[in-house]
């Protein structure tokens, strides 16, 4: 069988497993990891009415993975009475971020301008963070809809990262790193992160050193967070499919190695 044909069968097998497991109305038991518990406890410990800056620094391609996690974090923050200021330094994340913050705000009956505000996109993440540390109004004269920041009740008396309780970086790739390098190191604002699973190992050392106050990653993180929030969502729904797919991939790796070793022995 050619490589292309083998690949087609592998993809077909993956699709069948994911579809079948998603059709089965079974929820797998999720154990909450210390990472997720730390994030939950951190948000839980913030005083009500604290202002959280939510930075949506991801592309549209990461949305299927990062959306369930983002919704959990936003729901938890709104449920605690925290105020949210949304920003974005990735153009594709701008509208996605606004939609998520608006959706969760509506669920909790929060009012725009009083409980949350969306400032929108600015280019050059590093320069933008440095400017936010000096003056938010220096970077954003108006919000996403063109309203001057001075007319927004929530932002009265807030004009720099010094007045922000914590920055929540919802990101793919290494965008959270810039928040730690410029926001945390220069202005000492605490950083917490909701990231794609592929970035968890890269950020782990920052969590150990305290540069990152809390971190939760991927669909697995979303499932754990949903359990802590007592809310059934996309994270928990996807866990059976995720587990089955991992078993499928392990079986493929073992089979591939078995075939390789057998072929090598045959050559000898």
């Amino acid at each position, binding site marked *: 069988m050619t490589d292309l044909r083998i690949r087609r069968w592998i993809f077909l097998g993956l699709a069948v497993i*994911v579809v079948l497991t998603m059709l089965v109305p079974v929820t797998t038991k999720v154990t909450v990891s210390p990472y997720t518990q730390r994030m939950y406890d951190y948000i839980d410990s913030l005083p009500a009415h604290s202002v959280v800056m939510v930075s949506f620094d991801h592309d549209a391609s990461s949305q299927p993975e990062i959306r369930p996690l983002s919704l959990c974090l936003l729901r938890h923050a709104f449920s605690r009475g925290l105020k949210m200021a949304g920003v974005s330094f990735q153009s594709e994340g701008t509208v996605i971020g606004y939609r998520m913050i608006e959706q969760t705000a509506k669920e909790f009956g929060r009012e725009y301008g009083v409980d949350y505000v969306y400032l929108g996109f600015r*280019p050059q993440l590093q320069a933008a963070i440095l400017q936010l540390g000096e003056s938010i109004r220096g970077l954003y004269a108006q919000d996403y809809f063109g309203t001057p920041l001075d007319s927004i009740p929530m932002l009265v008396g807030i004009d720099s990262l010094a007045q922000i309780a914590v920055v929540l970086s919802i990101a793919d790739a290494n965008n959270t790193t810039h928040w730690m*390098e410029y926001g945390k190191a220069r202005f000492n604002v605490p950083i917490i992160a909701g990231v794609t699973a592929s970035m968890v190992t890269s950020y782990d050392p920052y969590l150990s050193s305290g540069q990152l106050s809390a971190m939760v990653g991927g669909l697995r993180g979303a499932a754990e967070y949903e359990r802590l929030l007592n809310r059934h969502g996309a994270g928990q*729904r996807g866990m059976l499919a995720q587990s089955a797919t991992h078993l499928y991939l392990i079986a493929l790796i073992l089979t591939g190695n078995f075939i390789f070793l057998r072929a090598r022995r045959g050559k000898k």
Partner: protein
Amino acid sequence: MDWGTLVAGLLTFAVFSFLYRDNPAYKWAESLLIGVSIGYTLVIAWTSTVSAMIIDPLSSGRWGVIVPLAVGLMLFGRFFPQTRSWSRIPIAVIIGSGAGAAIPAMLDARILNQMSPTVAPLWGNGLVASFGAIVLLSGVLSTLAYFYFSRERTGWFGAVASTGTWFLMIFFGTTFGYTVMSRVSTFIGRMEFVLGDFLHIIHQ
């Protein structure tokens, strides 16, 4: 079903069709993605940068933005032989200010702050913490030895460098595992949309 969901669902199938073989539906979806992404980025860049940071301030009488605007426009001097040298000024500003901001920040965040947990006390904080600190220190030292190329890898140094290889392999394996998990999560997230919002087979 709204038009947005219908279009997104059909485009998802068009992109997935590439897994069977390259075909016109995939090519069309790919071209559409590139075109829409560029168009969207241009609109966002115009409204958030050109309009918000240049046109609006100028129309409200904040003439101070003329200076950075003029320096920025000098970059376009590269397109004409007579004005090519003008572009050196904004490039010098960008590189100088960028390096000035980045070097101390990166040195602080990626090296100095990372060193302090690495040299944490090896004992006195309980058995588990001590074990973790010893593993961490062994990993850092042996990995550094692996990347030390000025000495032949023989004897005790070779053994330490080989240990570094093991630490590196464990890191690569863990990272690859998380990356696979990430890609699978993306696929699951997309299938949730297809089976739920698009085909209404599962209820969310």
